[in-house]
């Protein structure tokens, strides 16, 4: 990416300016749902606004075709001529990439392969002494990473149905919104952390020191 004001170049993966007057500056990564089925998003955020773009055929909110469908279905990886040699996972494996907040010492990077989410939608993990909840629903492709701390306690979550999960206090949570929908903490909200769905080769290239959840 470049910015219009200084024409510095920025990495869209790390948010860091890598060339030009602003080199070394860092954009703050923000939390999003990186790829979620429209009906699941709309159900949870009915007041949502939807991007609409002018085209030859008028304003459109979407197109029915993914121009990268062949690429996604193929084994091709990366820019021509580049080699990706971190063979800990196949290049085109999809992972959830997480920058683990630095509680003690350095920020860490951790990859959660989507293959872990075939039987369950939640992983309770504690990298860097940070209690994290990793959520991925294979049907809606909803992905979210939350801090497991609720009112000072690290909760443990187990999978119930789709995007609803229960913690060890019996509180039931909607993990699309991060909100407790019943139980003693009803109305509480989990802290959502930045996360991306990304191919392994790209994540490993930008963060070679990354660990992998096994």
């Amino acid at each position, binding site marked *: *990416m*470049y910015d219009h004001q200084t*024409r510095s*170049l920025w990495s*869209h*993966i790390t948010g860091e300016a*890598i*060339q030009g007057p602003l080199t070394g500056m860092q*954009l703050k990564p*923000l*939390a*999003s*749902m*990186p*790829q*979620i*089925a*429209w*009906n699941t*998003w*709309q159900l949870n*955020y*009915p*007041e*949502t*606004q*939807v*991007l*609409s*773009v*002018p085209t030859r055929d008028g*304003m*459109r*909110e*979407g*197109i*029915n*075709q*993914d*121009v*990268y469908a062949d*690429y996604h279905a193929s084994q*091709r*990886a*990366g*820019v*021509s001529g580049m080699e990706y040699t971190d063979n800990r996972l196949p290049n085109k494996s999809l992972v959830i990439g997480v920058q683990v907040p630095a509680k003690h010492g350095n920020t860490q990077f951790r990859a959660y392969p989507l293959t872990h989410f075939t039987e369950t939608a939640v992983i309770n993990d504690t990298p860097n002494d940070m209690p994290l909840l990793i959520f991925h629903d294979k049907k809606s*492709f909803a992905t979210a990473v939350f801090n497991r701390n609720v009112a000072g306690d690290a909760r443990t979550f187990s999978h119930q149905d789709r995007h609803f999960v229960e913690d060890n206090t019996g509180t039931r949570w909607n993990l699309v919104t991060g909100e407790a929908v019943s139980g003693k903490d009803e109305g509480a909200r989990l802290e959502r952390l930045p996360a991306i769905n*990304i*191919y392994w080769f*790209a994540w490993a290239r930008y963060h070679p020191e990354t660990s992998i959840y096994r």
Partner: protein
Amino acid sequence: MKNYMLILILLLATISCASAEDYEDYSDDEIRTLLPFDAIPAITDPQFVSAGAAKLDVDTPVIGVTFNGESHAYSVYLLNGHEIVNDVVGGMNIATTW
């Protein structure tokens, strides 16, 4: 994430329209320039419709963001041709990138 070689191939028509003065070669040992600036036009003045007015298939993948009670959704397939939306959501200046 996407493959920039593919972007090159898919957007050849766009590239051929970009004027020469827009082209800045930032290539060095670590960075290779593959496309001129704005060959993939970012969205700088986004427009929105309500959820009810949006014509999207139920299973269309979107990027969803919500800040301070305001939520925006962006079709991923639509963002293939733009890659960046400069937006304001809940009072926050954000760049949604794909």
